[in-house]
């Protein structure tokens, strides 16, 4: 490990890996540090991605547990809404094997020339006159000062690095989805179909998911709002009750826990010498909780902008702001704001109104229209939505 790099990346998840690859491909020196002893484990993810994944990488069958061709929404009243491949596109997406996938992303960064150190963690930021200059790093039992022209914080939902740089990264309790997932086997599922259960009884301000990983294997998990979480009604309690009812004979072979931010992204994802990507930037989707693609997108973009700024000799906040502006103006950035507002509406819905909305989903041709049009269609069948919820007007523009 050197004492100085052009770019130091804190965190070896998809965001950090994509950033490292982009920086290395630009011919600059970079280093990824990962506090865990192995990349991609433990997994803290439901592992689902849409077909946008091809914007970043050609999938190898080795990293794909299942190809998903349809989805089902289960309303609080038990009504099943089927979203077939015809309704939602030919390929709804994939359930990955994150252990393999994350390693592949890191290998690609390493092959491009980025150094990688596992079991190495940042313990503080090095900041001089308001400019981030590097990190104090614990490596092989010793604390070392590693300086860098730019540090990219890719340290996940529990991000501390940006906090050490003076940025408020706290997730409000009500906007943290607290999650538990079992990898279950020997259960009756529909291979190739992901199922979502909704309702205040099953998952208050969240949902239960069954993401198929094989013929009789699936990620079965739940996320609920932090404010709904309490003794006897924690995510694990809800999930255990669900499992008892749906898969009483299933076998749990892995337990995964985690938090997913469902808040707006950080007000700013850059400061002088610092860029923040992925879950650390709070860019996981506030409606679905999906974060892999957004982490890859922001990671790659941050790496590209970092390389550009270093080559131009300007790592000021104003120069790095390009990254912040670009992702906010992207389809992803606009989608985050729209989905935040939709989430705010959905968490206030009673089960009766959720039944009404979900019931009307089947009447909509999801293939031909975008999200805004879907919302308009939903209002057509549920006019009370617009009447009761003024914020929908903002979404529709």
């Amino acid at each position, binding site marked *: 490990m050197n004492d100085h790099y052009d770019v130091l990346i804190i965190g070896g998840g998809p965001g950090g890996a994509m950033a490292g690859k982009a920086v290395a491909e630009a011919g600059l020196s970079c280093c990824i540090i990962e*506090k*865990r002893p192995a990349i991609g484990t*433990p997994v*803290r993810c439901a592992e689902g991605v849409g077909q946008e994944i091809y914007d970043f990488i050609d999938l190898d069958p080795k990293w794909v547990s299942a190809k998903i061709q349809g989805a089902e929404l289960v309303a609080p009243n038990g009504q099943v809404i089927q979203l077939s491949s015809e309704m939602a596109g030919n390929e709804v997406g994939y359930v990955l094997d994150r252990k393999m996938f994350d390693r592949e992303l890191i290998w690609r960064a390493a092959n491009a020339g980025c150094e990688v150190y596992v*079991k190495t*963690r940042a313990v503080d930021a090095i900041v001089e006159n308001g400019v981030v200059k590097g990190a104090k790093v614990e490596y092989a039992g010793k604390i070392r000062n590693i300086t860098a022209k730019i540090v990219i914080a890719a340290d*996940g*939902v*529990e*991000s*501390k690095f940006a*906090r050490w740089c003076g940025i408020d*990264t*706290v*997730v*409000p*309790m009500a906007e*943290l989805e*607290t*999650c*538990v997932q079992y990898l279950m086997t020997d259960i009756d599922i529909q291979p190739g179909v992901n199922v979502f259960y909704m309702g205040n009884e099953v998952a208050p301000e969240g949902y239960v998911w069954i993401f198929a990983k094989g013929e009789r294997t699936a990620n079965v998990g739940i996320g609920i709002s*932090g*404010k709904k*979480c*309490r*003794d006897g009604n*924690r*995510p*694990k309690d809800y999930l255990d009750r669900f499992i008892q009812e749906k898969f009483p004979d299933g076998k749990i072979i892995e*337990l*995964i*826990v*985690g*938090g997913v*931010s469902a808040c707006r992204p950080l007000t700013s994802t850059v400061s002088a010498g610092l860029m923040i990507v992925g879950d650390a930037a709070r860019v996981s989707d506030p409606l679905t909780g999906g974060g892999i693609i957004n982490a890859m997108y922001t990671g790659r973009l941050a790496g590209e902008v970092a390389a550009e700024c270093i080559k131009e000799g300007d790592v000021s906040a104003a120069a790095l702001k390009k990254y912040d502006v670009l992702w906010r103006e992207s389809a992803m950035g606009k989608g985050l704001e729209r989905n935040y507002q939709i989430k705010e509406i959905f968490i206030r819905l009673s089960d009766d109104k959720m039944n009404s909305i979900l019931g009307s989903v089947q009447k909509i041709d999801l293939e031909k229209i975008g999200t805004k049009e879907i919302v308009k269609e939903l209002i057509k069948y549920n006019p009370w939505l617009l009447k009761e919820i003024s914020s929908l007007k903002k979404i529709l523009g």
Partner: protein
Amino acid sequence: MLSIRREICGYCGACVSVCPEGALELVDAYLTVDADRCRDCGICARVCPLGALEVADERSL
């Protein structure tokens, strides 16, 4: 006073992300608490998906 039941903790970081004081941290797959920073507000205990955290006196919820 915050106590961590390590036999239950899944080291997921949910508590770390909501701590307003930055008192919690995952270190070598162990959750640690900086007692000087912790204000015993109990927010971390509320969001824990497994119920691994307990605060004897939750003051500011």
